[in-house]
């Protein structure tokens, strides 16, 4: 390994999405005072443009796969997949924010700049090959998310959520950092592949490695809102502005799962016997706590928050299977989950109204009669959450549990599948209210969702069907890139 301090053209190409978004985000900060009053929507358009350029950049970067910047960064199929995913999530989040920001009369410039920075952080995370890079990416992403959570600064719930998220989030990052420090102490490196090589050395104190892995599981478990570190999720998702909740439940979560996979499947693969039981327990706890808590929720955002805990549990099942198929299943599931979750949140944004007053389940009453198209979209997302065939969610679950069974996790599979039957109950509850109840005040007074929100509904719905009917395209890519740089 030689240190190369003079990056070449390929290095910049491999780093292009981050470059585009950083420059664009900074530019937006500058433009904000000039255009914020006159053209509030321009920042949204601009971010979509930048994110689209970012996707092109991510694809271009994948044409020259390999290591960059002294092996700090690695562009492989896995990284490219997640980059495109978080960038697309960004586009959907921007689309669903137009109407919301308008309604709440919030500044648009900073909002979009922060969103872009958060995505920069996630892009760094998913392509990092070094624990320090991962940490930097995580912090960029998290700090931007903390601010976004409290973006409507006159709103009490926003502030509470931001504070809670920030305090607990920094605490969790501390655990992660501590784990990194321990690993550095043992192996004298922070590069993932070098750690792997060092752990092969029989003189490595495996007990200390176990401690480091456990510390990292705590930190990452918090970021992906897996039980028993899920306490913050319902409060934060409920308090944050709805489009931000939609974003946080998908983008940062996907990136956190990506580094979870990369660290544990690259560096800690040999010591799997030690960490697999922890993941096993966390998976079961997340599914069970998430689903049973969601049944009792009355608030739509809290319900989706608990459901996201449960879905984190399903993904951990795939992680516990520790195989290439498991990794591919995680990638597929996260893509499917991002689509259905953003779509579902878009409906919530639509019905919530100014100040997010209408967030109870009953507020969906009669949506099926008043706005059949919106209701049909939400139906698709809910069926996908349940895991009904021909939706992305079904294949996601199918791949996860197949990977688990291939790794002989029979009991986890059975418990997970039973859990998904429990989950069907609370998703059905929404369908019941939406279609079987007479229209209430909220449904009767709803206006048109507007072009942005409509796009944020229809694109995920189409995506959910594509993943549900021809999943092969995405899955094959995921399988081919599930081996990492090993």
């Amino acid at each position, binding site marked *: 390994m030689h240190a190369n301090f003079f990056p070449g053209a390929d290095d910049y190409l491999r780093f292009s999405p981050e470059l585009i978004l950083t420059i664009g985000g900074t530019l937006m900060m500058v433009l904000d005072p000039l255009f914020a009053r006159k053209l509030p929507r321009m920042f949204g358009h601009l971010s979509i443009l930048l994110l689209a350029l970012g996707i092109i950049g991510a694809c271009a970067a994948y044409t020259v796969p390999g290591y960059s910047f002294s092996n700090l960064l690695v562009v492989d199929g896995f990284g490219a997949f997640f980059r495109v995913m978080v960038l697309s999530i960004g586009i959907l989040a921007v689309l669903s924010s137009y109407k919301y920001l308008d309604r709440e009369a919030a500044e648009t410039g900073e909002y979009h700049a922060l969103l872009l920075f958060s995505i920069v952080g996630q892009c760094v995370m998913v392509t990092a090959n070094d624990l320090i890079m991962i940490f930097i990416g995580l912090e960029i992403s998290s700090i931007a998310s903390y601010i976004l959570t409290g973006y409507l600064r006159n709103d009490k719930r926003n502030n509470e959520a931001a504070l809670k998220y920030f305090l607990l989030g920094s605490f969790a990052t501390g655990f992660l950092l501590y784990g990194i420090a321990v690993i550095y102490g043992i192996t004298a490196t922070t590069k993932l592949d070098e750690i792997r090589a060092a752990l092969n050395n029989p003189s490595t104190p495996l007990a200390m490695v176990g401690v480091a892995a456990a510390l990292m599981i705590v930190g990452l478990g918090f970021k992906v809102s897996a039980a028993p570190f899920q306490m913050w999720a319902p409060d934060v998702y409920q308090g944050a502005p709805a489009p931000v909740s939609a974003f946080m439940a998908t983008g940062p979560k996907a990136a956190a799962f990506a580094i979870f996979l990369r660290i544990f499947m690259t560096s800690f693969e040999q010591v799997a016997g030690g960490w697999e039981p922890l993941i096993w327990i966390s998976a079961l706890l997340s599914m069970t706590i998430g689903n049973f808590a969601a049944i009792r929720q009355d608030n739509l955002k809290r319900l989706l928050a608990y459901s996201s805990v449960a879905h984190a549990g399903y993904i951990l099942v795939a992680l516990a299977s520790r195989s290439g198929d498991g990794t591919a299943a995680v990638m597929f599931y996260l893509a499917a989950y991002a689509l259905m979750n953003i779509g579902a949140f878009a409906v919530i944004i639509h019905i919530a109204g100014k100040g997010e007053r209408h967030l109870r389940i009953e507020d969906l009453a009669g949506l099926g009669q008043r706005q059949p198209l919106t209701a049909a979209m939400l139906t698709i997302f809910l069926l996908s959450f349940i895991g009904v065939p021909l939706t992305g969610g079904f294949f996601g679950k199918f791949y996860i549990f197949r990977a688990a069974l291939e790794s002989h996790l029979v009991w986890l599979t059975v418990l997970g599948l039973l859990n998904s039957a429990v989950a069907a109950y609370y998703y059905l509850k929404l369908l*019941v209210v939406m279609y*079987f109840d007479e229209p209430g005040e909220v449904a009767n007074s709803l206006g048109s969702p507007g072009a942005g929100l409509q796009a944020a509904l229809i694109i995920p719905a189409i995506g959910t069907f594509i993943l549900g009917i021809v999943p092969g395209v995405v899955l094959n890519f995921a399988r081919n890139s599930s081996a990492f740089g090993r």
Partner: protein
Amino acid sequence: MNLLDLVIALPGIGFILALIIPRAQEKAIRLLTLVFSLATFVVSLGLVAGYQFGKAGQQFVSDTVWISSPEIHWHVGIDGLSLWLIVLSAFLTPIAIGISWRYIAHRTKEFYAFLLLLECGLVGVFAAWDLFLFYVFWEIVLVPMYFLIGIWGHDRRIYAAVKFFLYTFAGSVLMLAAIIYLYTLSGTFDYAAILDQLSAGRIILSHSQETLLFLAFFIAFAIKVPLFPLHTWLPDAHVEAPSAGSVMLASVMLKMGTYGLLRFCVPMFPNAARDNAGWINILAIIGIIYGALVAMVQPNLKKLVAYSSVSHLGFVVLGIFSFTQLGLDGAVYQMLNHGISTGALFVLVGFLYERRHSLAISDFGGVATVAPWLSTVFVITTLASIGLPMLNNFVGEFLVLQGAAQANFTWSIFAAIGVILSACYMLWMVQRVFFGSTHEDVAHHMPDFNAREWACMIPLVAMMVWMGVYTQSFLPHISETNARILDQSRMNVPLRVSLPGSTISHGGIGRAR
């Protein structure tokens, strides 16, 4: 694309077209769905015409790769068992549309669209030869039925719809686990290939593995059948569903369960199936008698018919787990009979409800004097349901009882009690509804059949007589397939007795010995 693909695709296309047509064009939507369902029926008759006897394996096979990895195929095909169930689904859907013609007044578009989606799913379930595809269709069926009950049902429709969905879903996730587990063992979802591997001994299941896999499939199917004590969703769903929903539910959807038992449970896990046959048959007999006794005391017409279904389906399960040719033949024939006669009962009960707006038996009385034709048809249907000779149910019940007697005489003694009880509750109900003094409300609100209602009933009555008198039109297809299933179920018994004249012969069997 062969005929079978067409039978699955037509309702699917109709479903999409019905969604596209604007909501205001109610008439156009109704006509469109009727045309599509009739076309499906006509094409399904083509399957009957083209069916070749004596040909082992499936026919009308269509096999293309759907998902390349893991390899999942669009693999559909039929044999004598699925042939008639597909025809039954296609036969009943136009009737379900016909009886809803006036009754469904709001959100007509979705109603008819969902009926077609339901048909598409049902035909798919009976045609799928890929386990994964089977599961996909199995789950798709849930969605339209959930909405049919939930939107157009009676007072407690929401409770019933959710209960229906959750019961079935909970059962089927276990089946999914079993399907994936089989995949990890065999490396394929193709049913025929898995069966080959099992019978050739390339996959050897340990005793506990086989039992668990068997139970995972069995519970999913038993919930659907429904087998006592998993039947509690059924009365709720039947009573709350609109007539068309009840008809499809009773006539076809329950058969998904018994079809699954016969198609998958018995051939794939013969040892477990035989080991567990004892308690399963006891549950079936409890279901026969319990269903009949509960039906007897029901004050609600629909609930009475619903519990009678529990009783009738008990016969089917008993026939299947008797492991005799007669029992299997009777079970399958009884599936079809129950589809026709109980379907007809639900249609008629729906007609009564449209007229009287009540399902309580005590609200009727003396209907025969004001609506003689309706009453005549009802009595014919009742007699068919009871199992009067010359009508369809007699044949099925007789064969099942005979098959059960071959296996264990005690079973058939107890099961025969159910036949007697069915006469009690049905005839008593007929007496209270159609005879006696005519209530004033009944007299005023009970017109006789109109042309549309005749059009729905005549085919059903004709089928009752045809199936009761000339079983030769139907039974040979069934017997042939059942003989193969029975062979298959002997294939894996530990000693691997070689069967003279076995229709299935695999090179691998010798190796396995």
